[in-house]
């Protein structure tokens, strides 16, 4: 029994990170119809910036907002200097549909190379903000540690803030309107380009948070977030790619199922399971487990 609960807790902690990355991908997808493969790159750059702050100040809590803000800034810059230009230049012809994929891929490579040039390829460690030694109840210590709690709580707070912004503020209304129907939003007076850039900034911030949360339990290298990109994508697809709640739930579903597979079946099955889940969702319920009726033909 306790084994089940422990696995569930670990799954929720892992899933939280996936949810954040998935949220980042969904935010961009909704506003721009681009799956941003550079998200992993943007997140890694922000995380390295956070790393610099941690090593200089020895203060994780300062690194966190710095990484978050740089993530937002990087996201906005990517939109302004790459995506907007791309939309103007590559808007017709056989490759137009995949041009964003190629461009964000190129950006991923570019950021990785830059990060490698600045910080080198060796694995680095991030100071832990709280211990990763599991909670102890009486004589038993469970795998779930304060660091996992921090991850879950932070994710919940981030999700709450995003849902308040999206559902209760004018900015949120503008973001949703621009995502659903840019032309009508424009005709109603919404500055869609600016709104979109803000969406990219939010996505960048979410990705950066995922990066600074996952890295203390792991290590940091120019490509240490690649797997997270894939997990985030799988989570986003589970959630339907369109909805923020779907992104959050998709991350949890993926995190929990992976935790159970790892615990009860085999630790080598993580990738095949994730891949099978992805294929199953795409083939059986392409609009996502929590998605609406839209068919994926964009």
């Amino acid at each position, binding site marked *: 029994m306790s084994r089940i609960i422990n696995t569930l807790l670990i799954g929720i902690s892992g899933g939280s990170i996936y949810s954040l990355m998935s949220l980042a991908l969904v935010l961009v997808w909704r506003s721009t119809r681009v799956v941003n493969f550079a998200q992993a790159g943007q997140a890694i750059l922000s995380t390295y910036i956070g790393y610099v702050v941690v090593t200089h100040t020895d203060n994780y809590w300062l690194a966190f907002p710095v990484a978050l803000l740089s993530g937002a800034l990087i996201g906005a810059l990517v939109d302004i200097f790459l995506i907007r230009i791309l939309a103007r230049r590559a808007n017709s012809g056989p490759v137009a549909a995949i041009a964003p994929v190629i461009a964000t891929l190129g950006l991923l490579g570019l950021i990785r190379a830059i990060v490698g040039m600045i910080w080198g390829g060796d694995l680095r460690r991030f100071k832990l903000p709280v211990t990763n030694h599991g909670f102890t109840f009486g004589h038993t210590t469970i795998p779930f540690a304060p660091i996992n709690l921090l991850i879950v709580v932070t994710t919940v707070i981030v999700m709450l803030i995003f849902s308040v912004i999206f559902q209760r503020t*004018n900015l949120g209304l*503008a973001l*949703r*309107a621009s995502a*659903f129907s840019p032309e009508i939003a*424009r*005709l*109603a*007076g*919404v500055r869609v380009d600016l709104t979109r850039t803000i969406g990219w900034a939010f996505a960048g911030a979410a990705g950066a948070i995922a990066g600074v949360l996952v890295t203390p339990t792991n290590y940091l290298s120019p490509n240490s977030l690649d797997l997270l990109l894939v997990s985030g994508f799988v989570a986003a697809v589970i959630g339907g790619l369109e909805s923020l709640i779907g992104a959050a739930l998709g991350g949890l579903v993926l995190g929990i199922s992976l935790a159970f597979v790892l615990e009860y079946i085999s630790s080598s099955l993580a990738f095949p399971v994730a891949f099978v889940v992805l294929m199953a969702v795409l083939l059986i319920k392409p609009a996502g487990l929590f998605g609406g009726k839209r068919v994926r033909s964009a």
Partner: protein
Amino acid sequence: MSGLVVNDLHVFHGAIRAVDGLSFSVETGQLAAIIGANGAGKTTLLRALTGLKSVQSGSATWNGESMLRQKPENLVRQGIVHVSDGKSVIPELSVKENLALGGLWRRDKKDVAIVTKEVLDLFPRLGERMSQSADTLSGGERQMLAIGRSLISRPSLLLLDEPSLGLAPLVIEQIFQAIKSLQARLNLTVVLVEQNAMGALRIADIGVIVNLGRLVTVGPSQELINNPALRAAYLGY
């Protein structure tokens, strides 16, 4: 020069000359009906006037200032509001949110509240459905919502693209009456694109008849209605 003045406007879709040297003007406070068959270039004209489609050549001014080569969201801030064809509402948002969209950019929130109330008085059915999502509305209600939203931006020039599309005759009549009363009450200048030629001309001050992107004739709507040749060729009865 006050009002809307379009002069020798050319708009292409690739090689198709959708608007091919169109000139006409609408004085402030007038309601102009733009009439023409399918594919005459009416939608293209409106889209070009409000920055959704780029223009090859020609000019278009509103109260003496050029409207061309501006973003639609900036034109809205100058009082030029376009309700595009096919029920210009966002189905994923609620009725309330769709209305709010029209006033998001406005600083004067008090006036937004006032005009919202006016819209709800004009279309009481919207008021009963504020928290419903817009895709549950009927076609007529959607059109009311689209027009209502445009009013919240406090337009001085309102461009409507086929508000009667797909509506029952009774509802069309309601919508037309609403447009007419708004024009009078708010001193609005209205450009009304319509397939329903008779209905539109009846409420319009002037009629602009276009065919294949060119002007056929422009004149007081009553004259157009009474011209037998035009009736046969363009007004369809």
